[in-house]
């Protein structure tokens, strides 16, 4: 087994980085997110249509480049590095994949991949927002369509997407439904988030019209299949950010002088950065290993998403906390970029459930069998 990225993937990774440096530089990300406008639609159009980011790692049958998670990992890692505020994660990683799993014939998938429309998963119950569950929202059939009533917490990019993929309870069981943001009975409340690059909203549905996606009652399995991949892709996103932070902090430690020497020559500083490197490389190894295993769909794949997410989120948190400490006071300012990474690391460690949650899943696989 060849481990890691192949030549084409390395090259594509460079292309994505260049593209994002032009169209999504950190100064723009700051402007957009501070203004609360998210990623401008024309930028998302370029990303999906000019660069074709959405299609990467999806099957050819839906207009993708081939069903390979490692290809998509390349994209996720570069987007994480760029502090991506676009709908990529909710719209492509979660919704498009879930819909593909639930209904491979749905046109919605290719529309999402091509950036012609955007969507966000609304799957978390406000009462227990650890993992997707049908609780807290209920769907009923009405004629040819459906109606939903209920609440969904922490809907990513909720204010900026065209529609939602809601996981709701129904007489048939947990069901996936599409709800348009502009439909009657839909109210979206933007929330002031710690991490401006991952805006979330609270969604209230009051007898809102909906269309079923896939089989009624068959909502959980596609959601979980997509989620396992999402965990690995999120790990790549987090590692991409951690890498940027480590590079930035290493450069600072090489040039910042105190006591007549670069601070990076002090072992107290050097060892902190060495530990960041250690954790980052280990986390990177994890998702590079996991990607082909998930494609293969073996038994081992079931815990790998949990493993990747647990280790990558802790690696990113360590990287950003170390970075702030090494930068000293300047790292605590709004003006410096570090807080953007720190906040993204913090949100990244919770947005698909916490490291403790994932370790518990791993413990269950080790001990409860």
């Amino acid at each position: 087994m060849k481990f890691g990225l192949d030549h084409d993937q390395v090259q594509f990774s460079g292309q994505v980085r260049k593209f994002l440096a032009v169209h999504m530089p950190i100064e723009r990300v700051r402007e957009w997110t501070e203004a609360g406008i998210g990623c401008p639609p024309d930028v998302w159009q370029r990303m999906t249509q000019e660069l074709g980011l959405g299609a990467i790692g999806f099957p050819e049958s839906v207009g993708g480049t081939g069903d390979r998670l490692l290809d998509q990992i390349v994209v996720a890692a570069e987007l994480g590095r760029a502090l991506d505020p676009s709908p990529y994660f909710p719209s492509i990683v979660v919704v498009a994949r879930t819909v593909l799993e639930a209904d491979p014939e749905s046109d919605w998938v290719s529309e999402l991949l091509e950036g012609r429309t955007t969507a966000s998963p609304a799957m978390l119950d406000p009462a227990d927002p650890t993992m997707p569950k049908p609780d807290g929202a209920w769907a009923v059939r009405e004629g040819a369509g459906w109606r939903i009533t209920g609440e969904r917490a922490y809907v990513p990019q909720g204010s900026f997407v065209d529609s939602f993929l809601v996981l709701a309870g129904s007489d048939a069981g947990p069901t996936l439904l599409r709800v348009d943001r502009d439909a009657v009975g839909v109210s979206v409340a933007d929330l002031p988030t710690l991490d401006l690059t991952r805006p979330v909203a609270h969604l209230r549905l009051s007898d809102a019209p909906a269309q079923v996606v896939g089989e009624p009652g068959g909502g959980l399995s596609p959601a979980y299949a997509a989620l396992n991949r999402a965990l690995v892709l999120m790990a790549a996103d987090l590692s991409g950010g951690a890498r940027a932070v480590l590079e930035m902090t290493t450069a600072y430690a090489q040039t910042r002088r105190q006591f007549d020497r670069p601070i990076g020559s002090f072992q107290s500083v050097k060892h902190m950065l060495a530990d960041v490197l250690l954790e980052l490389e280990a986390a990177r190894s994890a998702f590079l290993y996991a990607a082909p295993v998930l494609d293969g769909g073996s038994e081992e794949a079931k815990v790998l998403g949990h493993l990747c997410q647990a280790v990558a989120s802790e690696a990113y948190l360590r990287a950003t906390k170390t970075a702030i400490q090494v930068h000293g006071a300047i790292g605590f300012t709004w003006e410096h970029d570090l807080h953007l990474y720190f906040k993204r690391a913090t949100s990244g460690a919770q947005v698909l459930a916490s490291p403790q949650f994932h370790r518990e899943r791993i413990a269950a696989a080790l001990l409860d069998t």
Partner: protein
Amino acid sequence: MTEPGSTEDFRQQVRDFFRSNLPDGWRGYGALPEEERKAFCADWREIMRRERYLVPTWPEEYGGGGLGLAEQAVIQEELVRHGLPTIPHPSDLFAFVLIGPTLLHWGTPEQKAHFIPKMISGEHRWAQGYSEPGAGSDLFSLTTRGVLEEGEWVVNGQKVWQTDGQYANWIFALVRTEPEASRGNGISMLLLPVDQPGIEVRTIRSMTGKEELSEFFFTDARTAAENIIGPRGAGAKVALTLLGFERGSASGATYAGYRIELDRLIELVKERGLAQDQVVRQRLAWCHCRLEMLKYLGMRTLDSALSGEPPGPESSITKLYESEYHAVVTELAMDVLGMDGLVLSGAPGIASLGPDPLGAPNSPAAWINQFMTSRAATIYGGSSQIQRNTLGEQVLGLPREPRPDAEKPGTTTEKAVSR
């Protein structure tokens, strides 16, 4: 590079060979009583030697297997999985992993022809002579000195921390032979026979209670002039060459060994009724994540070695990662044992370097031994702090810690320290 398919064929071949040479009901050498274990390891060494699996990558002309890195990785991993020793005699570690590869790289044809077959036959049993009482992490400040007199090196000084040094009849030692050169430039790698009046070996009892370490005193110890590896003064470079070739080949075996250990711990957790303890579950899952990542790091290292890529950061990372992991997992075992971890009950542990092999007892005594030996792993072979320096300086490119004497070029402070 070997095709993956053929590696799998080779793996089957190795497994078949092992099974045809093992008794029925084999449960791993960890399950053998101590008296039988030594005899088994000696016999197994001979079986491996005859099949030329003992040192798979060494050239056939010297008795090696003439195989590639991929095959060596397979053999070592299968050994561990079958509960068979990768290092059948304690001194083999220093021959097969350290001085052998160094000799093959730096040695003259005569040196190779003389020493390599004797490493394989077991006639020569090697000890490593690097550390000194005053030179640990700062290895190149060593002061054991060698002078060439009438066709012989005459060596005076002291080396210390030889693991199982009492079994050795040869020692490879870093010795200061060029006193006028600065630090690392004045050192040579010498090979000395141990059985001579000029060398005294004393054992050192470690915290485990075993006489597992030793120290070597050199008083006009002698060795032939030709028993130097590489040029005079190149010893530091020779010692650092150990790196490259074997890179990653032991990683599968290393992982397999720690996996056997963690599975043993999982059994212990269940036996002791702690499987539903939330803290234990979190800590165990954490260990599982670390261990699996050790496997992935190893696969990356081996993969890049097989592709002929230069060593990446992963090879420098593994030592630090592995030794720190082992300290944590053995601490968890002690917490799982609780008060029972205060009494050396049950069958004793086996390994002093790394985890106990397949079949080893899941007893308090064995875990206590591992808990103690894991303290050493973050020190020997370059302490965790030295590893972090290496990562910081050689991978991240951070500046070195300035030396007080290095700021004044041309001073002789360093040499004074060396003497």
